[in-house]
């Protein structure tokens, strides 16, 4: 377990923000930590949606239960936090 800084690029927000997470956090937990600084502050909540994490430039989301330690991020690397609509 170790503190790990990431940079959040949250869909719909206007600025990158520093988000401290833990190497044991899952991608869902990373998304939740990023949401604290965007949703309800400058981005409206989207009920029913879930938040997914992906690397900048990648279309593929990282698995929701993947841990930060397993993702191979560099400290302060930018991750995109994207709204995913509920499955129809």
């Amino acid at each position, binding site marked *: 377990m170790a503190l790990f*800084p990431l940079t959040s690029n949250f869909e719909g*927000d206007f600025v990158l923000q520093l988000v401290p997470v833990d190497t044991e956090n899952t991608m869902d937990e990373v998304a939740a930590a990023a949401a604290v600084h965007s949703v*309800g*502050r400058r981005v409206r909540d989207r009920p029913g949606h879930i938040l997914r994490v992906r690397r900048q430039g990648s279309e593929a989301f990282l698995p929701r239960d993947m841990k930060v330690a397993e993702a191979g991020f560099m400290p302060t690397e*930018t991750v995109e936090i994207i709204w995913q609509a509920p499955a129809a």
Partner: protein
Amino acid sequence: MAVLNRMDWYDLARSTNWTPKYVAEDELFPPKLSGEFGLPLTAWEEYDEPYKQTYPEYVKVQREKDAGAYSVKAALERSRIFENADPGWKSVMKAHYGAIARGEYAAASAEARMMRFSKAPGMRNMATLGCMDEIRHGQMQLYFPHEHVAKDRQMDWAFKAYDTNEWAMIAARHFFDDIMMTRDAISVSIMLTFSFETGFTNMQFLGLAADAAEAGDHTFANLISSIQTDESRHAQIGGPALKVLIANGQKQEAQKRVDIALWGAWKLFSVLTGPIMDYYTPLEHRKQSFKEFMEEWIVAQFERALTDMGLDLPWYWDIFLKDLSETHHGMHMGSYYWRPTVWWNPSAGITPAERDWLEEKYPGWNDTWGQCWDVIIDNVVDGNMAKAYPETLPYVCNMCQLPILGTPGKGWNVKDYPLEYQGRLYHFGSEVDRWVFEQEPERYAGHLSIVDRFLAGMIQPMNLEGALAYMNIGPGECGDDAHNYAWAEVYRALRAERKAV
């Protein structure tokens, strides 16, 4: 005895180059300070300054300018303009003085470098006058705000700002250190006078003088108009230097310096002047939008100046033109949302009438920036103030030192421009900021942004209190909403109206 006309003796009198016998030319003009362009003294003797002024003329004109500005100040000292001014206007003054006054004083040393180390005699003469200009600007812009310090602690930042680690001041210092404090005489002439002063001080001083007169602040309007007359003279130091460089096969080096300095100036003014013109200046006093002003005074002027000079438009010109509609909206939202970390009180500037104006000037504003403001407005109207302030740091660019931002809402295009250099991950706010870094990585690589300093444990405790202490923001100096959220009443009334229907 008859006095010769100035033009009968000026060229001869200021041709002060000689052939050094006791030292080598490189000892008299060390390349690091004089410019490493490999051009001999004779090449620089072709430098032909467009603005020829002698010392006696300078003294006479400057004395008259000073007398004018100081007498307006003296006459209006009891007018209570400051006390009665719109709080948005006070914020304009505070932001301006803090960001500009001591920078002008520092510019005197950059001018002094041209005065001593330029190989061009004409430049040395112009820079002698320019150096005195900058001392005058520093002194005036410290003296004029001083009468307000007893009324408002934030006015103390006119003097204090440059000594602090406040984030916007780190950005200002990083830029001015790069273009004027750590460059050779010729590069200073290109980067400070041609690239920065020709266009951008025009905007700050002309645009703001018009807004000040509209706001009834004639002291401020006179002060900055008086300064601008000096700027428009010494800003011409760089042009002839560019001509000499181009004539001697140094176009590429000249172009690079222009491109670097223009971009940095643009970023700095997007945070300083953009919010002032489009959000702080009361709606009824706005002459032009920031974008319109930029297009008229900066874009058109630079396109002409660069072409006349034989230079190209910077490679990023299309990016720059696109950013004119976007960047400063983000800079405003950032400085508003992180308002405890600035030394002025940002004016939100988002009443329904102001939003109509923004939508007219920037079609799509409501679907992008407006979407974020809707959430901020709801929090303020609901009294949910905890959500109306930040709890983390915005990530800042390792070049311009300003937040990395883009367009939000339906036009979401925010992007990081990362670069791994010698094991460290750097973040940039644009392709251009990253390009500047790549031109000379070792020049910039060691600098720590405010976020880097936070992560390195230099800011303790690691919370807002620790950040404010690190930024030297004392009690009573923290920024907050300029109008104490009075604008929220309009939205409360609208809600009540909707409920009644």
